Structure formats: C-alpha cells, structure tokens
C-alpha cells in the first residue's frame, strides 16, 4: 500500500510542480533591467531612422547629458506596447501616431502634460496640438506634420492638351471632366494613366471638408459619417473612379505603381494629378529631381485652400518612472533648435550630393518658419521651389481629425464602408449609414 501511495505522490508532485511553475510565471514581473535608476530614460517608438531623426535624437541627448537614454529599434506597435504595459516594463516616453493619443488617453494610460508643455506650446501648430489634447488636457507634443497638396503631372496635361488651370478641386463637374480627359488606356482597355486619383478612403475627411464639414464632431464623441455632405462627397469621388475604368482596373493599376523609387508615377506618366502628403516631395526630389510637376492647393467649394494634417506625437505613460526627463526630452527633440540643426545638416548633405532639399515639415510652426527663412535655398529646380513655397503657406489652411476615444474604430468603419462602395457592394448612403452606426457604437463603448 505504502508503495502505491509513494507512486501517487510522485505523480502528483510532477503535476503540482508544473502548476506552481505556471502560476509563478503568470504572476512574475521581470526584474526590470530598465528600471529608472536616477537618470535613465526608456523611449519606445523612436528607433533608428533617417538623418533628420538621428540628428534630432543626438541634439536631445546632448540636452540630457546626465541621463542614460535607451532607444530600442522599431516604430510604435500597439501589440508590443500592450505587452510592455502588461509586463510592467512600461517605457518612460513613447512616440505614436496622433490618432492613437486620444484612444490611450481616454483609458487613463497616458498622463496629462499640461504643466510640461505650457512654456512651449505656443510654438506648435494649433491643429496638431489639438490632436494631442483630450478632454481639455494636453497629453504631449506633436512631432512631424504631413499636409496634403495636389501634385500635378504637368507632362500629362501637356500630352492631353489640358490647361494646368483645370487641375483644381473647386468645381467638381470640371474636375470629373479633367480626370476623364487625362485618363489613358491601352488596346486591352487596361489603364496606362489614371487621370485623377481621389485617394479614398484615406483622404475622405478632406473631401468632406470641401463642404466645410467633418466626419467627427470637435469633441470626438459624435461620428458624422452619414451626413448628406459625406454621402455627396463619397458619391462624387466614387464616380471619378468609375469614370476612369471602375475600381477593379483602377486598384489593379494603382497597385503597380512605385511611389518611392526612380520609376515613380510621375516619371512613368501613370498619374495625371492627385492629392498627396508633403513627404512625397522629398522622395521625388531625391529620386527624380527633373520631374515635371506642379504643386497646387486642394481647394474647397469656395476656392479656398484646405489641407489635412497627420503625423505622430510624443506622450508619457502614466506608469512612467521618469516623467521629468521624458518631458525634457520631448521638448528638446521637437524644439526649434533640434529641427533647425537637423534641417541644416540635411541641407548640407543634399548640397554635397547634388540632390534637392525640400524642407522639413513639422508641427513646430516657429521651426518651419526659420527653416524656410534661414536654411532653405533654391537648388535650381523651380518645380520644387514652388512646392516648398506652397507647403510653407499651407499649414494655416490645415485641419486635423479631432481626437476621439475610438479613433481607430471610426477610421476602420469609414475605410470599410468606402471600400464596400468602391467594390460595388453597397450604395454610398447605405455604406455610410452602416459605418456611422459602427463608429458611434465604438465611441459610446470607449468614452
């Protein structure tokens, strides 16, 4: 009998050992080798990047020379960030896309930084700073700002014998006609040039803004996806795609384009004109400096310029162990001096290599002004000089999507609805009604 008990006990011991290990591992917090000893700053979402990023990081590091700064590789990723929150290994400072800020702030994951930013906030673009604000508190500082302008392929207009003045968005009837004139197809009926790409669903809020309306209320708590203006905007933009061959052909052709290489759509004459973020001028000037482009404003129904901002921002988690240095770092890395230092170094590098410098566009208005006035010089490429002039003027006409506690879900509902219309599965009204319902449900659940 006792031998039987011994055997049972042995087997039970094996099972119990596994159970204890499971519980131990489940509850274990790592002995954090990233714990903030005095003077340690752990940053997440700001891994090694281009020259502008590295020069700013170097400048910020100099301002905090008593602090050990850890900057692991990689950009922000929700999954990785959640894992760090769950494990207790919370970074002290995070860089994330601005649409995410309100989502995390609404859940109390981030700490308000009103006191930190008070002394510098007047330097930053109002729209970008608003995107970092939730329920009256500013949660950090915005960094880059992309803004949308029209990029016009002048060669295509010459080829189609259409005047450049027809590259406009004020008059939709004329816009549709211009798009049709610029569209080219081969003998099989496949597209060889898209006349005008309305860039939906990504830039749909800009099309709604044409009417002076927004897809979400200013406080981010009411979705407005199915307003009559939104339905009209979607109906029109889809009609452009349909007039140019329909979504299947349009999307298949667009997927073949290489925007970031030397054989970009301007060089290959694949696009007539389209709205695009400002970073693309830098890419084009590097890869194809002689390309025949004209930069123009996207205009509203009254002909006034409008542009939509997007970008990233710096925030501090509530569980940050070094909020003081986090505040100092975020101010330093987005400061006028940091941007000027990076812009100057880029300008010098481009000059040495014979490439073009098209400026650096940030959420710091003061930095942008000084970059243009003190650093920017013409490289003898008038098309890019004009683009830069436009980009410097564009921000005052800009808006950014209001922060919302369900920002991602609102955008996903919008994207899904618009894609259903493009694929011919729903009418614009039905799709946006469905998107509205999904978005508002998400907002109600998140606030």
């Amino acid at each position, binding site marked *: 009998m006792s031998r039987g008990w011994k055997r049972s006990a042995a087997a039970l011991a094996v099972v119990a050992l596994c159970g204890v290990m499971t519980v131990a591992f489940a509850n274990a917090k790592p002995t954090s080798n990233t714990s903030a000893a005095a003077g340690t700053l752990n940053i997440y979402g700001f891994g090694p990047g281009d020259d502008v990023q590295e020069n700013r990081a170097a400048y910020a590091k100099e301002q905090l020379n008593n602090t050990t700064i850890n900057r692991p590789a990689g950009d922000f990723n929700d999954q990785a960030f959640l894992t760090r929150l769950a494990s207790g290994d919370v970074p002290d400072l995070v860089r994330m896309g601005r649409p995410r800020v309100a989502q995390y702030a609404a859940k109390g994951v981030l700490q308000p930084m009103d006191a930190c930013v008070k002394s510098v906030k007047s330097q930053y673009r109002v729209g970008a700073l608003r995107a970092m604000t939730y329920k009256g508190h500013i949660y950090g500082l915005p960094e880059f700002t992309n803004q949308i302008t029209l990029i016009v392929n002048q060669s295509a207009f010459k080829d189609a014998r259409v005047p450049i003045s027809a590259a406009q968005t004020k008059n939709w009837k004329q816009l549709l006609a211009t798009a049709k004139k610029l569209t080219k197809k081969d003998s099989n009926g496949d597209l060889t040039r898209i006349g005008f790409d309305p860039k939906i669903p990504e830039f749909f809020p800009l099309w709604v803004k044409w009417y002076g309306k927004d897809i979400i209320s200013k406080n981010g708590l009411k979705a407005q996806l199915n307003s009559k203006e939104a339905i009209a905007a979607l109906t029109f933009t889809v009609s452009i795609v349909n007039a140019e061959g329909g979504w299947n052909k349009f*999307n298949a052709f667009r997927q073949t384009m290489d925007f970031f290489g030397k054989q970009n759509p301007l060089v290959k004459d694949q696009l007539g004109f389209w709205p695009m973020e400002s970073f693309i001028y830098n890419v084009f000037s590097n890869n194809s400096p002689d390309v025949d482009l004209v930069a123009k404003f996207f205009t509203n129904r009254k002909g006034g310029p409008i542009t939509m901002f997007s970008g990233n921002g710096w925030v501090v988690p509530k569980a940050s162990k070094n909020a003081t240095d986090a505040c100092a770092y975020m101010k330093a890395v987005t400061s006028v001096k940091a941007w000027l230092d990076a812009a100057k170094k880029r300008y010098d590098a481009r000059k040495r290599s014979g490439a073009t410098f098209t400026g650096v566009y940030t959420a710091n208005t003061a930095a942008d002004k000084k970059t243009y006035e003190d650093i920017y010089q013409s490289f003898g490429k008038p098309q890019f000089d004009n683009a830069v002039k436009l980009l410097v003027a564009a921000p005052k006409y800009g808006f950014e999507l209001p922060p919302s506690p369900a920002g991602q879900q609102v955008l996903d509902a919008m*994207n899904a609805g618009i*894609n259903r219309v493009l*694929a011919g599965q729903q009418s614009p009204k039905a799709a946006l009604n469905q998107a509205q319902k999904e978005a508002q449900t998400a907002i109600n*659940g998140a606030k």
Partner: protein
Amino acid sequence: MPGPSRARHWFAGFRERETWIAYVFIIPWIFGFVVLTLGPMLFSFYYSFTNYGLQQIAGIESTKSVGLKNYRQLLDDPKIASSLKNTFIYTVMMVPGKIIVALLLAMTLMRIGKLAGFFRTIFYLPHITPPVAVGVLVLYLFNGQIGIVNKGLGYIGINGPYWTSDPTWIKPTLAIMDIWACGGTMVILLAALYGVPRQLYEAAAMDGASAWRRFRDVTLPMISPALFFCFIILTLAGLNTFTQAYTAFFGAGQAGSQSEAALFYSIYLFQNAFRYFNMGFASAMAWLLFAISLTITFINIGVSRRFVYYQGEQRK
C-alpha cells in the same frame, strides 16, 4: 474478469525506472504546454467573462466580471457572422483543393525515378516560404493588370479576373496561394502511398481492375488515415487563417485595399484585441472559434468511422 483500472495501470508504470526517465524527458514539453498553451487558454477563458481591456492591462482598473456580456455581443455583432462566413468559404475551397493537389503530386513523385528527390524538394519549397512573403506575393502574382497569373491565362485565351480587387475572387486567390504551399501535405501523403502493400495492386490487377478501380478501391482506403489526418489539420488551419490575408489586405498602408471579403475571423479577432483593446470580447471570440473547431473535428471523427480504414482493425 475485470482487470485493473486505467488509472491503476498508469500508476503501476511508475514502478519501472524507465517510466521515470521517460517523464523526465517530456517534462520540458509538459512545462511548455502548460505555460504557453494550456495556461493562456485558461486565462483567456477567464477573461472572456470579464471587461479585460487596456485599463486592466495597464493596471489602472481591476478586472471585473461582466457575465455573458461578451458572448451575447458575439450574437449582436454582424461582423462575427460575416467573418465566420468568409472563413468557412475559404476553408471549403482550400482543404479539398490542397489535399487533391498534394495527392496528385505525391502520386506523380512515386512514378518519377531518379529525379524524385529533386522534385520533392521543389514541391516542398513553397511550404517553407514565410507566410508574410506569401501575402506580399499574392498582390504581385495576382495583380489583375500585370500579374503573371493573368499573363499566363492570357496566353491561352482566358481573360483573368481582378483577383485582388474583386471581392468575388479574393478568397479563391488566397486559397490558390495556400494550395500552392501544399508541400507538407504532399510529404505526408507520399509516405502513406509508400506504405500501401504492392501485392494489393498486383492482386487487383490480376482481377482485371482498371487504374481508376485500383486507385479507388486500394489506394484511397489504404491511405485514408493519412487523408483523414490531413483533412483535420488543414480544416483547423483554414479556420485559423490569418497571416497571408492580413499581410495582403490589412497591413500598414493598405487602407485602400482592405476588403471585407478578406476579413477572416482571426483577423477580426486580432483587430478587436490589438486595435480596439477589447480583450474580453476577443477572448470570447477565441472560445467561439474553439467550440466551432471542436464541433467540426468531432463530426469529422464520427464520419471517419465510415470512411477511414486502419490496417489491422476489425470492422463489426
């Protein structure tokens, strides 16, 4: 006469030194299974009855029970039904297709003489291609305008569809890419084919059975256990499909290519967990998928009694 119970039999094994050694060797696996599989499953089951989300992850609020709220939400959310439908349709396309193609390749390999090893490697290579790479390949190979698939179809006079834009063709596209990577299934079936006794074919041939009759009445029954195994594994894989579809249609910068035709259940689960931070609801989704997978597996096991023949068993 009733013998010792199974439990007593198991405990009795510990009298032997070899039993102890065996368990020592498998303890690492048991540990891994408990910590990395069973443990998370139990936690997820618990979380499916709670409000577990971002605030709970960050330790800002405690986890509270919400009863069956997450499970009720499964019934109210129309995307659950649509994503399940997408997943089932894809699985129904992929599983038979993969088994048929793998079996054909395996049978071809049996007939090839000296070059069998070389071709076996060639056929197996797609299986070890990383799924993310396959997702990217989908967009290039199946592009409606310049993709090699439509160019090939064009040479034989077929006007190929817009595989990656047309919602009707997105699931077949993904299924074809998955079938292309049938090397793993092929290897399993090849081993099964080698296990079919030659004398059965000889006997059948002597009785005048045609090639089709030999295949139907000798090959298929003899490899039916392997076919059943592949069927189960592939069905479960199909129900969990994620990477290729997510990479091709839902990755970063793909807002204009997202199609609800490619919104599979696992992708929607991932979005709920890691984009919308509804971990409790995502856990409930996971357990629904588990229940569905278990039900389908049990049905398959029941049906297999009729169609699967294990050598040496006696049918009553």
